[in-house]
């Protein structure tokens, strides 16, 4: 009898405790933001940095009270990050998986080839009943190839415009180094971003009166550059522009040093303004100028860099974009009164898309970021150069 009374009392106590806890947990709402990108393979570092940036920004927002939902409730942000292996099919599969949940937006991907294919499965034009494409908003943080957001009205990007960056850089070089007349290119031919950006560099160099005296090509996994650098040496250019990622950028720079190729100026690809280049070939990269949309030069940027580092990432132009995106999403959730409930998923996705499309300006770590009608960002940028084993700001163009 005593046992039964004890059991009954315990049950009542548990029920009472549950009834006290239940309202509190009901108020404690969470909004899950799902990021995706490369977290395996040779571009894993991009995914690691993006995930760290998303988590860092979410933590900052949560510390400040979280996000206000459409029904007035406060919610905390949680971040989930999925791996697409920088593979288009996996990227599509990951997004279909995210879209089958309560998620109303996704952040990613890392690679332009994934973004290009992925944006292709989204509904091209909103409201087109004949288009059965996925109606799910995606905002890209890293994929940098020009013009990708045009593919679908559900696709958005917060990546810098490389066209604007190199246009500005070459115009600046013309004023600062009028004595430089010729340029030679080195391009990683089998990587979409490097290849496309080299086209931008070349066009802007010519537009600013530089004579392109040739170009050498190599592949992403190449190990020898002697033939390419010898071609470069014969052209004897004033400027060498290398549109390649850190591994081959360093390979080419080391070969240039061996063969005594010393151009008056070196220009690099945006993605190479990272710690990897300095880890691989700081000495050979000394002086290389790269335009970038991130450097810890403002209090916000410094804080972001510190927070991202706490989550095991490194803040660069790509992960800084991811950091900014979380704040953009918070603003859109609040302005569009997104409910974040299982029964409002479809409506929340539409609201999120409308909110992102309506943005004319967002707050960035280096200043205000403009938004274009084709859902791209116009980000402030600056030029950095490698000096003494670190990246230092060389010049900040007026925005």
């Amino acid at each position, binding site marked *: 009898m005593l046992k039964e009374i004890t059991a009954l009392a315990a049950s009542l106590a548990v029920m009472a405790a549950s009834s006290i806890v239940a309202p509190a947990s009901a108020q404690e709402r969470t909004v899950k933001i799902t990021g995706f990108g490369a977290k*395996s393979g040779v571009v894993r570092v991009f995914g*690691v940095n993006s995930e760290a940036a998303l988590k860092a920004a979410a933590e900052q927002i949560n510390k400040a009270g979280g996000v206000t939902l459409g029904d007035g409730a406060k919610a905390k942000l949680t971040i989930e990050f999925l791996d697409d292996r920088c593979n288009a099919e996996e990227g599509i599969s990951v997004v279909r998986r995210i879209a089958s949940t309560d998620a109303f937006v996704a952040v990613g991907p890392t690679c332009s080839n994934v973004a290009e294919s992925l944006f292709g499965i989204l509904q091209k034009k909103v409201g087109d009943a004949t288009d059965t494409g996925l109606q799910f908003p995606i905002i890209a943080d890293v994929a940098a190839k020009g013009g990708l957001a045009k593919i679908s009205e559900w696709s958005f990007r917060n990546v810098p415009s490389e066209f604007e960056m190199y246009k500005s850089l070459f115009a600046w070089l013309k004023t600062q180094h009028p004595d430089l007349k010729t340029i030679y290119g080195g391009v990683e031919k089998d990587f979409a971003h490097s290849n496309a950006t080299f086209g931008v560099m070349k066009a802007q160099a010519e537009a600013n009166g530089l004579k392109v005296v040739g170009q050498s090509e*190599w592949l992403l996994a190449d190990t020898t550059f002697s*033939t390419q650098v*010898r071609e470069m040496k014969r052209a004897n250019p004033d400027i060498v522009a290398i549109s390649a990622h*850190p591994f081959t950028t360093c390979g080419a720079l080391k070969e240039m040093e061996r063969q005594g190729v010393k151009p008056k100026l070196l220009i690099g690809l945006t993605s190479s303004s990272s710690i990897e280049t300095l880890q691989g070939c700081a000495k050979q990269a000394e002086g290389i100028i790269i335009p970038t949309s991130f450097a810890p030069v403002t209090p916000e940027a410094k804080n972001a860099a510190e927070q991202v580092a706490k989550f095991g990432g490194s803040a660069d132009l790509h992960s800084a974009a991811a950091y900014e995106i979380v704040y953009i999403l918070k603003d859109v959730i609040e302005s569009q009164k997104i409910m974040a409930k299982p029964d409002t998923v479809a409506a929340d996705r539409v609201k999120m898309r409308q909110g992102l499309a309506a943005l004319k300006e967002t707050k960035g770590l280096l200043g205000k970021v403009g938004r274009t009608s084709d859902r791209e960002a116009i980000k402030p940028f600056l030029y950095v150069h490698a000096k003494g084993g670190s990246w230092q700001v060389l010049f900040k163009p007026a925005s």
Partner: protein
Amino acid sequence: MDFLDFIDIVQSIADGVLFGTTYALLGIGFTLIFGVMHKLNLSYAAASIGAAYASLLIFAGIKAPPPLVFLLAAVCGGFIGGMVYVIAFRFIPLANPLATLMSTVGLLLLIDEIIVHTTSGVPLAYPALFSDVIVRAGPFNLRGDLMFVFVLGCLCMVLLLLLLYRTKLGLATRAVSQQPIAAELCGISITRVNGLTFVITGVIGGIAGAMTGAAIGMLSPLLSLPLTVKGLIVTVIGGLGSIPGAIIAGLLVGGLENLFQFARGVSERDLYIMILLFVFLVFRPGGLFAPSAGRD
């Protein structure tokens, strides 16, 4: 073609031949395992790069002299080689040729992912010896670091041949390679010989990984797959099971690669190397130095 073009072609070929030493070292490993077990170890190049990475990571934060880093790479290579044998061969039915092939493919991917997860895929600078030495011969330049790799490759080949033809282990290895049943009847442990073969090829692989890193000046997980392909091409062209063949084919492939790069550009370069592979497979399947048949 003017004189400068001629000089550039010769220089390109010379650079390629010297760099081909790293292919040759990898080819030796592939060919030795095939010679002994008649199996392909597709994880060999990845394990070699893994060994080089391990040597770098163990010395992380310490400015170790390059020879010590290379030595550690060889030791790590031997250890990884032994592990590869245990994981991908020891308990896999050897009678089924596909079983070990697939297990080594799996191991290749696994080693690659371990490297990627350990380093986030970030390229790391690798030390080199004689990297600032350039030997000038008229209009031509020869890289000191690649000449060192070349000499080391030749040394490895000589030591390996001495091991195979002047030691009891070598005798046992050859016996297992040629007549495994008879060798076993004579009291030779096939498992032990096979395991030691993997350790020895692992040591060479570690050296190959270190030399590749030294020649490029960096290590990246990007290297595993292309080096696996190059190693296989070298093994086929040199003759499966032939150590001198692997050396010659490594140098040949390195030289031709640069020649095609010079003549046809990067987009066609690998095409011609693949055509060369098919030419060998069709017209000389035994390769340049096919060993005489001896196994039952």
